[in-house]
């Protein structure tokens, strides 16, 4: 296992707030990692920095030893927490779009998953329901053979049955040598697939341990520990 993601004294400040406060973080390849924290803890900021959507105020973030740029974007598959696709496109067109830009995109895998959902390629994205739209976004990301998958709140806002679908899609389609970083606050649904958990609050990393370590040391599930740590 090699080091895939490293954050060194990573800080992001806005005018009145500090979103990330000099965090140091290392992720190794081949793991499913949960980035867990309440709303406003800095999860999305960290994710945006990894994807080059923000520039750090101080410190650096390295993916496979490289700063976020064109090369790392070829290796990172990102699922934002909102709908980001051109709604006027059809499913087929967006698949072609991904195929054009990402050399690691697996078209056959995407169509197989779409077939299972009975979504025809010629429908426009804007005609799909919210749930189906989010599933299509997930399919596109998971059809890539990336080194790092970054999923921002993939199960928030979907019904329990759809959450099972999301989780099974993640498990069944990601590259076992890659790392999946899932940001969420709905831990009970995701805990069983996690290898590692990172607790983040107010821009600081409170904890980074494997799930087994957390259970052994604390005698409770990650979800229970989360509720205890982030109790109001």
């Amino acid at each position: 296992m090699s080091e895939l993601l490293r954050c060194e004294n990573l800080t992001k400040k806005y005018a009145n707030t500090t979103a990330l406060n000099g965090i140091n973080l290392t992720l190794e390849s081949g793991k499913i990692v949960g980035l867990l924290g309440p709303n406003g803890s800095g999860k999305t900021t960290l994710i945006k920095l990894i994807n080059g959507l923000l520039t750090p105020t101080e410190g650096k973030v390295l993916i496979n030893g490289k700063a976020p740029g064109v090369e790392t974007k070829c290796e990172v598959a990102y699922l934002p927490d909102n709908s980001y696709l051109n709604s006027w496109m059809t499913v087929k067109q967006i698949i072609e779009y991904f195929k054009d830009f990402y050399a690691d995109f697996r078209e056959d895998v995407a169509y197989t998953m779409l077939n299972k959902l009975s979504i025809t390629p010629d429908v426009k994205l804007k005609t799909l329901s919210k749930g189906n739209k989010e599933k299509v976004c997930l399919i596109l990301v998971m059809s890539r053979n990336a080194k790092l998958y970054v999923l921002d709140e993939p199960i928030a806002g979907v019904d329990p049955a759809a959450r099972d679908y999301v989780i099974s899609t993640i498990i069944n389609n990601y590259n076992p040598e890659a790392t999946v970083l899932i940001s969420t606050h709905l831990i009970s649904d995701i805990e069983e697939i996690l290898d590692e958990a990172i607790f983040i609050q107010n821009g600081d990393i409170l904890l980074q341990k494997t799930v087994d370590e957390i259970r052994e040391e604390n005698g409770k599930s990650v979800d229970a520990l989360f509720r205890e740590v982030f109790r109001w």
Partner: protein
Amino acid sequence: MVKKLFKHEIYAYLRTILPMHMILLGIAILGRFIQLFENDSVSYRIVFWSSVVAFIIGVVVCIVLTLVFGIRRFYSNLFTSEGYLSFTLPVTSTQHIWVKNTVALLAQLASIIMILISCCAITFGDVCVEVFKAIGYLFKLSYTEIGYHTTLFVIEFIITLVVSIATTYMLFYACIALGQRAKKNRVAAAVGVFFIYYLIMQVIATIFIIIVAVFHEQLYIDELITYLENHPIFTNHLVFSVTTIINAIGFVIFYAITKSSIKNKLNLE
């Protein structure tokens, strides 16, 4: 990767601009069809002139909509939720800016060409042929009588037009990019930036005019004007060159602002 970016950008334009062009061409053909029934009656004249007015409105709408679409495309593709997709593509921000500017410029040129084709369509036949003959004759006349290279004039005009269109788009891109630095109401902030720019330009122009008016003797303005009046060919070349250079400088400045804002100050929400 840039080729693919071009391909998808052009497709995004085609699906909006192409139907608009077809509508304009349709209005032109309909207008020409109305002329089949030419007579002296009042009703024909009303219908004919209505078709001419509709065509003129169509031309204006074509130019304006192409410009608006170009600006909107830049904003929506980079600074709304679509930006999450655009900025996570393995493409640099420089490539994004260049591709968008180039395709917007091509779309505007395509609109101009379509307007010219529509003008030919609405005058199709005798009138169109005579218009081309008249233009050709004027070109020849201005060369033989005045020594004016009209072909060179056309080339200079096209270069000036291309640079000014590209600069206009880049100006709007810079306004949008600067507007993104605001915490709230970023679109309103972009509009505000544009007005501030416009105000600054007006102030600069006024100061320039005042300086020229007050110091016109020391600056030999009268002699300069006389010289320019007596050398119209040189004056035309000068006007085109100066306009192109000023626009090019503006383009570079606006590009630098846009690139810097996107690279360092991007904050998609």
